[in-house]
């Protein structure tokens, strides 16, 4: 059982199918693949785009730390995390997490865990560009996300 997480922080979009293939190609020990894709939703037509600011260097390091924790906690065969930064129009991809394992529960829990900690620990900040053109505003961190992360402690 080897789990070397693949971490990428990039402006470009990602290809979930190519990333999933990378975790299963040429091997027969993967029984479960759970993918999470987070997209920029337009909040009922109000949002034009999100601007994602990040802390270069720390973003990769911190995601790597969370991913390594997940590899220690669940028997994963692979783990991929890609987080975009820059201006992302409504409807586009923001983040991808794929957890591969022999076992369904491990893959589900690891992907869920990764997302909870990305939300609360990875140094990214979202600013909303509104369709109406009124002043951009920073998205507030929610207590729901903090509570979700605490489920794992």
């Amino acid at each position, binding site marked *: 059982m080897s789990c070397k997480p693949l971490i990428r922080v990039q402006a470009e979009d990602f290809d979930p199918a190519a990333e999933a293939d990378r975790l299963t190609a040429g091997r027969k020990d993967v029984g479960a693949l759970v993918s999470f894709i987070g997209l920029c939703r337009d909040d009922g037509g109000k949002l034009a785009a999100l601007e994602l600011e990040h*802390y270069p*260097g720390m973003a990769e390091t911190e995601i790597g730390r969370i991913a390594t924790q997940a590899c220690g906690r669940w028997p994963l065969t692979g783990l991929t995390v890609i987080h975009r930064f820059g201006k992302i129009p409504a409807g586009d991809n923001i*983040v991808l997490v794929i957890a591969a394992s022999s076992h369904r529960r491990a893959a589900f829990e690891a992907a869920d865990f990764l997302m909870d900690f990305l939300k609360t620990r990875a*140094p990214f900040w979202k600013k909303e560009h509104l369709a109406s053109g009124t002043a951009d505003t*920073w998205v*507030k*961190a929610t207590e729901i996300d903090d509570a979700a992360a605490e489920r794992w402690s």
Partner: protein
Amino acid sequence: MQIRYFAWVREKVGIEEETLDLPGNITTVADLIAYLKTVDDNHAAAFEEEDAIRVALDQMHVEADAELGAAREVAFFPPMTGG
């Protein structure tokens, strides 16, 4: 010491980063924040809601009571909203 700001902290301070020579009596993150508040009105405004600000020392999350030690870089930012 290299100081970096992100998101609304960056906007309020008005700069992305700066290098400051710190007085010798500044040993913790909390000391540094107290000092930065005295730099000018922008810094004072940025650190007004101190509880809303998160800190990283050499790119690791720390609390306000952390010792600056030999850190080369400290960053201030709001609670994260990635994912």
